[in-house]
């Protein structure tokens, strides 16, 4: 969160925030940007898989929010509304890029894939484990990028953002059944793409899977 948001001495309740936003308050808009820009950026990045495009789309999303806050209906939550605009903008941007830039090959993307510096952040894990974890992250991101956008957006909202099916259905403007079906197909595709790479050792993930299995009472 930015310094500006940290400097705000009180927390906005959502209703108050919406009222202030609708009355054109600058500080409310600052708070909204500070609080949500990272989440929106991540969501858009997940769909577009390009940092520069994600930044542009995030900017566009907040401008749309700024312009359209008067049309916001109090029935849904601000976050859901924001995510809905983000997903729509990201998919529109992707469609636009596919139409206009499909012949172009990005040099940045190539560089990002091959020449990214690797930082040793966790001093407890061995460099090998950390590198393996980093590789896994890259593989999962790459696999996500190759899943069709409709399934991808549903999987991102569910598995990366941790939203409920009902929220996703509101964001994507489809029924809960359709959301389930898209998530199911997206996961199936991801599993097929990742294949054996899924079983690469990753201590943290393994322990999480075990704890999840124990919670469910599954004997396997």
């Amino acid at each position, binding site marked *: 969160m930015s310094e500006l948001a940290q400097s705000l001495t009180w927390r906005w309740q959502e209703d108050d925030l919406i009222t202030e936003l609708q009355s054109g308050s600058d500080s409310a808009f600052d708070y909204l*940007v500070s609080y949500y*820009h990272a989440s929106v950026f991540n969501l858009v990045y997940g769909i577009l898989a390009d940092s520069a495009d994600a*930044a542009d789309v995030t*900017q566009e999303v907040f*401008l749309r929010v700024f312009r359209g806050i008067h049309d916001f209906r109090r029935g849904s939550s601000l976050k859901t509304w924001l995510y809905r605009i983000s997903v729509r903008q990201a998919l529109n941007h992707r469609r636009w890029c596919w139409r206009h830039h499909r012949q172009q090959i990005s040099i940045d993307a190539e560089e990002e894939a091959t020449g990214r510096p690797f930082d040793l952040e966790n001093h407890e894990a061995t460099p090998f484990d950390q590198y393996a974890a980093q590789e896994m992250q890259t593989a999962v991101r790459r696999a996500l990028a190759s899943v069709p956008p409709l399934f991808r957006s549903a999987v991102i909202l569910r598995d990366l953002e941790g939203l409920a099916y009902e929220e996703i259905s509101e964001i994507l403007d489809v029924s809960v059944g359709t959301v389930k079906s898209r998530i199911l197909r997206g996961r199936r595709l991801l599993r097929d793409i990742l294949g054996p790479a*899924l079983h690469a050792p990753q201590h943290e993930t393994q322990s999480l899977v075990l704890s999840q299995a124990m919670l469910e009472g599954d004997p396997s």
Partner: protein
Amino acid sequence: MNCYQARRRLAGYLDGGVRASERAQLSVHLDCCGSCRKDLNDYRLLVARLAHVERVAAPADLASRIRVQASFGRSRWLPFTRLWSRAVMGFRNILEPLAVPAAGGIVTALAIFTLLVQNVLVGVPVGGIVPGDLPLNLVQPAQLESLAPFSVPETNGQPGSEPLLLEATLNANGEVLFYQILSGPNDAAVKRQIDQMLMFSHFRPQLGFGRPMDGGRVLLNFSGIHVRG
């Protein structure tokens, strides 16, 4: 449930993505199928790996860029907004002093118009095509319902002689209180005939809002028709 059906549903088994009935069948199948259990484990791993995907840090200047763009957008619309608000204010300044007199005038005009229409179009039923329809005007005049079967008072029957025209005033029961001969013969014999006729004739009294009222007036015109031959 066989393996094919189970594998189609496994991805949703972890977090309620399958129906309760299917879930029960699926768990029965998983108890006895090692291959599907392995697939389920793959999905568990996948979900766990997805949940641990690191969040990408947004560019440091992104929030500032958004704020700058928003303020730029606001300043771009500012002249139009100011112009619009000035126009609205000017319009209000002109209209506000006139608002009360204008509203009063309109209401008065409407009231007068309504009363006038009711009085001018008195007795004219709205959509009065329906037989027996009772009009709901303010005042409906008295009218003759049936004339008593007595002989019509004789006029002279000569061309140029005036027909008998009289105005009868009724009470709320439809009875004639008195009458006045406006034209025609005015002798005692004619008056007696008129008295008989008016006494046994039926009149509908004048109605105000559907209720009978005193003071209704009826004009009666008698013209003698003589057929020779």
